């Protein structure tokens, strides 16, 4: 539990998977925090000053000191509040957790963005490429309730991006990237996630989120037509 004198503030965006990761971690640890919704189309001086290098959310401000990059923030939270550990204790398992977290951000996220950004044949290629990557995650889940094993852990928090962004986007895009027949383990895992109170509390409400994704995609399309 956080001490009384501590000030924890999150510069985030309600619909951002990266920002939600940080909320999940803080909630899991029982750390009270202030959430400050940011407008990335019109960046606040506080954001620019707190993350001058990337100018991105999320940024965690702990007693005024800024930390950026969601994976770095998650580790910081785990190092600072040691109850309910997010990462395993053993160095080898820690390394494996970091490996899969990177895989989600550098491979799955990057590839899945192309599904949203492309049309026609290029999109089909991106869908196939995303599925090839997801098959590795599928394999990791065999015999486990969570990517972290018996309990929710680091990789689960990071991979909520797959469960609640990628898999929600597909409803809007109209392409089933993660069909249940092909990915039974991933679907089982999403159900397990939804049984965790912290997750339920920390993911964006579905209807509002779908509307938001739709609006964003429409505006992206408008831009590409011009």
């Amino acid at each position: 539990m956080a001490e009384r004198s501590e000030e924890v503030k999150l510069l985030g965006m309600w619909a951002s998977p990266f920002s939600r990761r940080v909320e999940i971690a803080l909630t899991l640890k029982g750390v009270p925090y202030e959430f400050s919704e940011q407008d990335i189309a019109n960046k606040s001086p506080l954001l620019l000053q707190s993350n001058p290098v990337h100018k991105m959310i999320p940024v965690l401000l702990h007693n005024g000191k800024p930390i950026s990059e969601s994976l770095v923030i998650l580790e910081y939270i785990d190092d600072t509040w040691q109850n309910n550990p997010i990462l395993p204790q053993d160095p080898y398992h820690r390394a494996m957790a970091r490996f899969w977290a990177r895989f989600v951000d550098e491979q799955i996220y990057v590839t899945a963005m192309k599904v949203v950004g492309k049309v026609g044949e290029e999109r089909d290629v991106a869908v196939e490429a995303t599925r090839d990557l997801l098959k590795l995650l599928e394999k990791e889940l065999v015999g486990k309730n969570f990517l972290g094993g018996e309990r929710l852990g680091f990789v689960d928090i990071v991979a909520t991006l797959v469960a609640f962004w990628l898999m929600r986007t597909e409803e809007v895009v109209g392409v089933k990237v993660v069909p249940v027949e092909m990915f039974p383990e991933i679907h089982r895992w999403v159900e397990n996630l939804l049984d965790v109170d912290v997750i339920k509390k920390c993911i964006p409400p579905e209807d509002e989120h779908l509307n938001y994704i739709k609006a964003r995609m429409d505006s992206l399309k408008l831009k590409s037509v011009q």
Partner: protein
Amino acid sequence: MADEVILLSYWPSMFGMRAMIALEEKNIKFDYREQDLFNKSQILIETNPVHKKIPVLIHNGKPICESLIVVEYIDETWPGENQLLPSDPYQRAQAKFWADYIDKKVNGPTRLIWAGKGEEIEAGKKEFIEVLKTLETELGDKTYFGGETFGFVDIAFIGFYSWFDAYEKLASFSIEAECPKVIAWAKRCLKRESVAKSLPDSDKVTKYIPELKKRLGIE
């Protein structure tokens, strides 16, 4: 100690150098196994089935991939001497942030310089200088990125120094003229045995690039 430590690497790789430097800093004996990336060995494919890239550290039969993850693993497994990441959570987060910055920003432009043509080289150079200046600002007047002691961010970046000569020749510029503090820092790092042992000669890298491009089918 019955530890068996194997490193799969490739001599010009700055990612491989990271793992070597970390092992040297900790005085860990290891079996170095040079890999042919154009004809990948069974052991590489088996130990890194996801990326099939070096470096891979195999510790008592267990493989660890991704150079920064390897360096952190080494630090956590052999915590005794020469701590590479600071213990203070905030300093630790800063070190991880900068190492991640190097991973995100340095590879793109430097690859344009050695593998690109004409305008690509120019664009790569321009972007690389910007990245170097950001890093130089972060370094400031400190001895190393983390302050007084050599550590994680230094390890993440120093391998690129062995390619500086090649970048300068290919893109006709002087890194020292742009960022003198970065060069002074690199020279300080090279005084450490761990670094001197792990970095190849700049000359050797520069001479190897045409061959590398040929093997990659560019040029």
